[in-house]
């Protein structure tokens, strides 16, 4: 017990050291300076404190999370549902799998200008930008989760008189749940990319506005603070989901 306690302490020590090292490098590089536009860690940090204090960061996120959450929820329900359907139905698989394989490999950010062209510069376009990036991985993971069900479990369920519905509800879906969750987590990570691209490319709002505004007036510490904040939020959210996933579906029980 005390032993594991000590290794835990040591891990935290290393973690702090690595942060210290990275921030130290950043500070040194900023003071060198590499470029006048590259502000050191200390100034960025102070800028972030200022932006939190004056409320501009909070206001920016209040608008950034809207397309992110709406797009992600739509993707989760429609994309996850479609992936499950694709895994269950050979016909659906036949006509849509090639499409999603291409979508998954394609740099979807390239279609965002097209989205703007069709849907204008409002919230709809930004929601679509999130959806377009997040959907492929959500659909494909749900599909693979369904398709990876061990045939022997399905055969077992049939042997004990399970109906098709019972096979789906009691075997296939529980088995796929872990992989569907992974898909949602990866989809949210893509959604963060989508929303930032949308806010930089379509019309500057929220965090995209903070980044482009501060860079245009050469407030580089503020600009870096805005960039750092979105990196921080995305990283913490995704990491949190990963931990939740490991708790909900421990590797021994997830079966896939």
């Amino acid at each position: 017990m005390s032993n594991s306690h000590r290794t835990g302490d040591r891990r935290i020590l290393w973690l702090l050291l690595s942060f210290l090292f990275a921030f130290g490098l950043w500070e040194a590089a900023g003071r060198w300076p590499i470029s006048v536009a590259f502000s050191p860690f200390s100034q960025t940090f102070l800028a972030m404190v200022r932006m939190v204090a004056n409320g501009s960061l909070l206001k920016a996120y209040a608008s950034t999370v809207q397309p992110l959450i709406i797009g992600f929820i739509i993707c989760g329900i429609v994309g996850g549902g479609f992936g499950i359907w694709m895994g269950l139905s050979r016909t659906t698989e036949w006509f849509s799998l090639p499409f999603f394989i291409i979508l998954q490999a394609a740099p979807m950010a390239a279609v965002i200008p097209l989205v703007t062209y069709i849907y204008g510069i409002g919230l709809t376009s930004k929601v679509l930008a999130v959806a377009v990036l997040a959907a492929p991985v959500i659909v494909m993971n749900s599909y693979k989760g369904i398709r990876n069900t061990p045939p022997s479990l399905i055969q077992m369920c049939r042997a004990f008189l399970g109906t098709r519905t019972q096979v789906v509800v009691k075997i296939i879906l529980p088995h796929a749940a872990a992989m569907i969750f992974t898909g949602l987590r990866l989809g949210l990570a893509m959604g963060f990319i989508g929303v930032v691209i949308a806010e930089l490319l379509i019309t500057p709002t929220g965090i995209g506005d903070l980044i482009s505004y501060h860079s245009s007036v050469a407030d580089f510490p503020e600009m870096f603070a805005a960039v750092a904040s979105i990196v921080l939020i995305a990283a913490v959210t995704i990491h949190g989901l990963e931990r939740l996933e490991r708790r909900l579906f421990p590797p021994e029980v997830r079966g896939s």
Partner: protein
Amino acid sequence: MSADAIVELKGIGKTYETGVEALREVNHSFPAGKLSTLLGPSGCGKTTLLKIIGGLIPATTGEVLVEGKRVEGPGAERAFVFQDFALLPWATVLRNIAFGLELRGVPKEERFEIARKLIGEVGLVGFESSYPHQLSGGMRQRVGLARALAVDANIILMDEPFSSVDEQTRRKFQEELLDLLRHRQKTVIFVTHSIEEAAYLSDRIVLLSARPGTVSQIIQPNVDRSSESPDEIRRDKNYLDAVDQIWQVLKKYL
């Protein structure tokens, strides 16, 4: 003979889509209340035959009659024990054992009570809320066996149930299986590739030929399992004769 036949195979043939002919013209009647083994060289289609009897895969030709009725799919009078156990990794031992009853809509209280009784019989007391990954191979197959016993089918189909279990556990397991079956009126059809296992367990051994598999010979080891101890059986002259007899047939196909 056919008066007490519970499972009848009539001209069973199976050819896979790939063109491989696994079984040809298999005719046999399995007597009720006995343990029959399907034994043959590897690839002779014995597992395929068992799955056809179980209604899990269709035969290409011929028909299977169970209690006089033609098999169209799985049925309540047959229960299956799988080679790879086929346990739900996300379910506890208790739920896995009760799973067949769960599919039949038996209320939770009732099916868990049946499962708990079987847990005692197969020696898994204390593991009710464990998950399959926490159990050894032998214990997992006990769960598989208990699940098959829980639905109280007349016929138990066992597909190489002990093949993924180590030799020592396997012997122990064979003895316990005979114990479990002694006070139950079950018909067991058992697939194995082990000659000793077949001779030790079976009332009747159906030897299949090499692919395409067909019934080559039937051997009835005249071993008195009711009075002899497991170790006595393994020294019994009839047991040893049966082992030798099986080997004489099987080596032709190697």
